[in-house]
Structures are given as C-alpha cells and as structure tokens.
C-alpha cells in the first residue's frame, strides 16, 4: 500500500469533540424532504397530497434523468407539498406512521454495473454519489474512471469513522462489491488511525494518507492517487453513506438512518445521535446546547458546512452538526493590535499562533476583519496539499475565464478543498462561494 505524506494543511483546534456514545432522538410526527438538499437537480413530483408512501417510495425524480428517484425516508401519508415562488417545490411533508413499513426492492440479479446503477437510481440512494468535476450529484449517463471513498475525516470535530462504522464490515463489503462492477473502488485510509472495518475489505485499492486537514478530503486523495483530467469523471461517496448503500444491497430496504455527531464548544455533551433523514435540526440541538449567548448552528463542519436554523431539515449528507457562538455581541477594542491569545490563528502576528497544539479554542463566527483585495501572497499554498496554484485558480474563477480554470485544475477542486484557504485568508475572501459559483457556471457552459 502506498502512503502519501502531506505536509501542507492545518488542523483547527476547536473545542467540543464528540464522545464515543450514541443517543436516539424522539420521533417527530411529521417528516419533511427538501428538494434543495440535492444540488443540481430539478424535481418532478411522483406523489400527490394524501398518497400513502412507504420508506423507499419515490417522492420525486429529476427532470433530466427520469430514472433518478428521491424517496421517502419514512412510511406514512403525504401531508402537504409546500411551494414557494414560481411554484418551486420547497418541501414535501409526510405524516409518519408509528412503525415504518419499507418498500422491498428486488436485488436478485445485480450481475453487472448497469444493474447496480439502476438499483441505486431507483432506490433513491443515488443522491449519495457525487462526481468530480463540479462536485454535484453524479450524472448517471457518464461512466466514471474510478470511485473514491475517503475512510476518514480530518475536518474540525469530524465524526470518528472507526466508531461510526463499527460492525458494518459486511455492509461495506457488499457496497464495495457492487460498486466495483461499475469502476475501480479506491479507499483512502488514515495512516495514524487504523480502521479495522475498512482495512479488511476486498475488491478495493487502498492508499494511506498522513497529514493535517484536508488529508481526509476525498478531493485531495484523488489528486494524489488518480487525478481527474479533462473529460474524465470520478465518483465520490462518503464512507457512512457507503454503509447505507451496503445495508440496502443486503436487505433490499432503504433505511436513511445515520449517526450524526453533535459537536462544538457550545454543546453541553458532544456525542453522536441516530438521526433519520427528514428531521428538523431542533430535534438534535434543542436542550443539548448552552444558550446564554446567540448561537450559530452549522450543518456539517465549521469549514465547509453551512448555517442552519432550528426548524430547518437536516440534509441527508450531513454527518455532523457543529454549534459555536455567533459572537455578534462581542465588541473587541482595537483588535488589530491586541495580542489575541484567546483567538486561534496560524499567523505569527497573533499571540495564539505560539500556543498552537497546546490548547483548544472556542471559536465564534466573527469575520475578525474587513473584506479586502488579495494582498498577502502564499497563504493559500500552505493549506492546499495539491499540485494546484489556488490563488491563480481563484482569480481565473473570479474572472470567469473557463479555459484558464480548466488549465489550472478546476476539474479536481471542490469548494470543501479550498475551505482552509478561506479560513486563513487575510483579505476575508468568500473563497468557497466563488468556487461553487464558478463550478456551476462551468458545468452550465461545458455540459
């Protein structure tokens, strides 16, 4: 097995790591599915209000790929189809039964890649498969050259997959066996932490990665093992989602339940919760966090996640919820010259840079500076362990120069890979938003 030693990157010392302990949450009466959770698709409804559905029954499908279903996470009755401006479907609510009934899928003859693909599209689990380039739900018409799965996550307070995947070897093996009929499956392992559930898998190509965040990002791993070139497609799947696919392949049932880590400095007891898709954030967060100060609830990690409100539905791809203080009530006097031993920085103009590795910090959501033009050079290079010039790529993206983006490696990049660039940026540029918009634009123009 090859080991890649990565030097560039940064581990952010955020307080509130999850303990190895899982709790259930109370079951809401009403579940909701939000089409906006599935970026890049246009929903066409398959159900009406009042229809009976089972867990796994299609609620809607994609307009351009009709075979791509999005299914109900529970059994019950379709309560309402909520629409917004121009009749856009905002959410589909389902009044849940007390006990779930599952749609039974026939998986008796998954002999080739095509049938595996069909089964995943039909069961709604396709949503877990993303593609590079563009970092969107994979286009089923394109044959990938390989499938990449990162076996660990280095993001701040990310779930520990040695814990999350415990006892799921058979499901993972089933998923890998099926997917390897489509393309070669690669799994990136953490050189520092042995994961027995993953390391014994067959039909897989392994590579080990040793280094700070973003070593666990699948994009970084692809760049080192088998980089994406023009015209090529690579699929990526989160490893917990891979286990969900595996359970489906073993049982024929779609069970959209996963462990979500509730973490961060404002969480009273950081731990894991067993969450079914369709549940509002409040079911996990209410009563489990300190609420003396304004809070920021983040779906995902604090680098590449996004802010959510209490009543929003947690998306199916979220593996963690991070809670930090908003910080809007802090008025720091002359912050530009204060030593700031209490606010983390990698920059040695700040006192805390000398405490690096010695303590964890309770970050808040403040920008800690104003937006400027790019001034300082070489900052981004230190946190992106890929053979890419991030500043030049970003400038090409701002300029909307598609040729230049292509030349500089835009096909290999997802917003999350450049999240650390955004974190360290002295000029406080919205790096990920720029990357997302540029990739969307590129996809529109080139596909």
């Amino acid at each position, binding site marked *: 097995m090859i080991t890649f030693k990565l030097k560039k990157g940064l581990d952010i010392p955020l307080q509130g790591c999850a303990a190895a302990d899982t709790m259930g949450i109370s079951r809401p009466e009403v579940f909701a599915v939000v089409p906006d959770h599935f970026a890049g698709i246009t929903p066409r409804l398959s159900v009406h209000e009042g229809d009976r559905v089972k867990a796994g029954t299609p609620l809607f499908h994609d307009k351009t790929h009709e075979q791509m279903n999005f299914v109900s996470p529970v059994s019950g009755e379709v309560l309402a189809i909520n629409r917004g401006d121009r009749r856009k479907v905002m959410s589909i609510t389902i009044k849940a039964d007390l006990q779930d009934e599952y749609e039974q899928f026939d998986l008796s003859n998954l002999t080739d890649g095509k049938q595996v693909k069909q089964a995943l599209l039909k069961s709604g689990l396709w949503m877990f498969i993303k593609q590079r380039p563009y970092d969107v739900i994979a286009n089923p018409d394109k044959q990938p050259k390989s499938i990449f799965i990162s076996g660990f996550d280095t993001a701040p307070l990310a779930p520990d997959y040695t814990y999350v995947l415990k006892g799921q070897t058979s499901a993972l093996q089933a998923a890998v066996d099926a997917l390897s009929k489509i393309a070669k499956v690669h799994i990136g392992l953490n050189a520092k932490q042995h994961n027995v559930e993953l390391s014994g898998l067959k039909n897989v190509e392994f590579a080990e990665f040793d280094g700070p965040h973003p070593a666990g990002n699948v994009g970084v791993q692809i760049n080192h093992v088998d980089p994406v070139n023009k015209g090529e497609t690579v699929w990526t799947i989160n490893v917990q989602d891979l286990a969900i696919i595996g359970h489906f392949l073993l049982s024929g049932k779609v069970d959209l339940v996963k462990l979500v880590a509730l973490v961060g400095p404002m969480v009273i007891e950081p731990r894991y919760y067993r969450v079914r898709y369709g549940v509002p954030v409040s079911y996990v967060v209410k009563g489990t966090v300190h609420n003396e100060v304004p809070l920021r609830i983040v779906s995902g990690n604090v680098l590449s996640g996004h802010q959510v409100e209490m009543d929003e539905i947690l998306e199916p791809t979220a593996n963690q919820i991070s809670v930090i203080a908003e910080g809007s009530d802090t008025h720091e006097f002359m912050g530009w010259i204060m030593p700031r031993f209490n606010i983390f920085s990698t920059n040695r103009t700040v006192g805390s840079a000398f405490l690096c590795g010695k303590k964890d910090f309770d970050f808040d959501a403040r920008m800690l500076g104003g937006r400027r033009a790019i001034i300082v*050079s070489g900052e981004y290079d230190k946190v992106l362990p890929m053979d890419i010039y991030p500043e030049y790529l970003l400038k090409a993206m701002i300029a909307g120069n598609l040729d230049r983006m292509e*030349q500089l490696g835009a096909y290999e990049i997802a917003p999350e890979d450049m999240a650390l660039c955004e974190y360290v940026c002295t000029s406080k540029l919205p790096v*990920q938003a720029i990357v997302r918009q540029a990739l969307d634009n590129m996809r529109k123009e080139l596909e």
Partner: protein
Amino acid sequence: MFDKLYKVVEKLRPTFSEGGKLHAFHSLFDGFDTFLFTPNTTAKRNGVQIHDATDSKRTMIMVVIALVPAMLFGMYNVGYQHFLATGQEAGFWATFAFGLLAVLPYYLVSYIVGLGIEFTVAQWKHEEIAEGFLVTGFLIPLIVPINTPLWMVAIATAFAVIFAKEIFGGTGYNIFNVALITRAFLFFAYPTKMSGDKMFVRTDGTWGWDNGQAIADAFTGATPLGQMATASESTVQLTNASGQALSFMDAMNGLYPGSVGETCVWAILLGASLLLFTGVASWKTMFSIFVGGGLMALIFNVSGIDNAAANTPWYMHLVLGGFAFGAVFMATDPVTSARTETGKWIYGFLIGVMAITIRVLNPGFPEGMMLAILLMNAFAPLIDWCVVQANIKRRLKRITVK
C-alpha cells in the same frame, strides 16, 4: 471603559449613515470605527463559519512597527548630520529633537495628502478604507532626501497614490510600489533639485530652530554612493560627512548622509527580523536580493571594469545606500512582488543583480535600488506567469502520458 466608548460610537453612527447629516464623511467614520472596535460582522450562511484572527489591518501595522527602529535612528541621524554640517556641538536629545522636528513635516504632508485621497476615493466608491497607505505613508518620509521642499513631496505623493494605485483599483491592485513611485516622481520631475552634495543633509534649520547657519568648512554632504559615482579615480576611499574613512562597521552603524531610513543597517535588520519572524515579509525575496546583489558586485569586483563603483568591495554594496532598506521593506511588498514561491526567488535575485548593475554601469544614477525594484515590479507578473505555466504543462502532460 470600552463599553462607554462603544456607546459613543454607536450614538454617532446614525449621523454618518445613509440619510444622516454627515454621510459625506462615512468612510472616515468607518475608518475610525473599525480602528477602535473590531467589526463584529459574522460569517455568511455559506462558506467557512470561523475565520483566522489575522486581518489586513494587523498585517499592515506589523510593517509600520518594523519600520520604527529605522525611523527613530533616521531622525537622530538627521540631527547629527545637521549639527556636523553647521559645526555645532549638540547633546543626544537636542540632536534627536532636531531630527524629529525636521522629519515630522514630511510625515504630516505624506499622511494628509495620501490618506485624504484614500478617504475620498473610498467614500466615492462606497468601499471600506484599505490600510495600504498606512505603510506607504510611513515609508515616503524615510526615502525622500531630507532637503526636499514639502510641496514637492505633496505633489509626488498625490501623483503616486492616484496614478500608481487608485486608477488600478486601489490597494492590492497596483503594479508598482507606491512609495517608490513617489521617490521616482521626485527624481524625474525635479532632477535639478534632487542632485547636489547637500541634498541628503539638513543644512537649513527646522521650525525656525537653527535657521541660516553657515556650513562648516570640513563638511562634505555627499553620500557614499554619490562619492562612488563622481569619483575621478578608479578607486575611491569612501568617507563620512566629516571626511573620515567609512569602514564596513561604520556603514552598518549608519551615521553618514543618506535618506532618513536607509543608513543604519542594524535598525533595518531589527525591522527585518520582526517581518521574518511574523511571516509578513517573504524571507525568500529578502535572501535572494542579498544573494543576487552580492554575487553581481563580486562579479564586477573581478570583471576588470575599472570604475569606483565596480571596485568597491561586494560587501560594502550590500550595506550602503538604499540596498538593505529596499530589500527588506520595498521589494517584499506582496502586492507588487512576485506571488508564487518559485517566482520570489527569481524576482529577488534579479532585483539584487539589477541594483548593483545600475550602480556600477549607469553614471547618471548613483543609487540603483529604486529603479531595480520598479523594473522588477513590472516583470513580476511575467515571472509568475512562467511559474504557473509550468504547472499547466504538468497537468496537460498527465493526459498524454497515459
């Protein structure tokens, strides 16, 4: 105490906001507001939710702090040279006070003119004030000759800020170092006023103190580089202002005529150590300038070109004139320097080479640092382009290899 101050700021805010009486000065208000209190705007809904504790203000202020030793020594040296020129004895504090009073008007002019333009443009473009001029304004008095009339400094500063910076889009978009453009403007627009022996020594008084003193007989105000350029022999014994020989250590100590900030290498090294320790300036750029300059001077030493500058030992070139000051504070400006790490090596090396080449081969300009940096400012994007192009080629090769 800060809470009270915060309340005052909040009370004033509506007056300066849209529709308020003093809305025309909102950029000024924003400037002071963000100076007093770190803005508590929080991250957007999408994108990183936490940010690093560094920002543009902090970065810029580090450069200003790094410049303080050179400024303080420069002030003392201005007083020292003045009393030497007029043949008077003066104590340490009188010497320093004279220098302070002589340099202070340049700071006032530089900041009033430069910041005035910055505030106006920020107001006009509805943008926050960028901190770039804090550094530029601090540099200008340190690099212009101390006998320059103030109105010339005002015009040069205005020219540089408007035509070297604002028309490109402001801080972060300029191609040339703004402070150096100020100096270059002075040297090309008023060549007769910028030459002569006494340009770098304050012969006249300041604020009415010591006006109209006669110059002592033994005094010669020529800078060491000036002595090299005007030497009639092919070797020259460099001297300080009172005619004593100038050794390497004397040049390090800096009590000889020159621009305010450039003479004392120890003070510059102190500033350099802060910039390098905090990582604000690139050690690659700095290091490669000294390597390039030293190597080029060494080549001239043995080349057979027979003039005073070519025969000056290579190590003297590195500590005389604006070489060290330019290498530490001017060439490392990230906006106008090469931005790729490989590019920084090339950029720095070529600045060193060019600076010494101009010193030796161009009799019109005793000092080559300013022109070398400005020239390489123009070439920095090209250097970066080549470095980035190599990355693009590597990526293309990946497909063809298969």
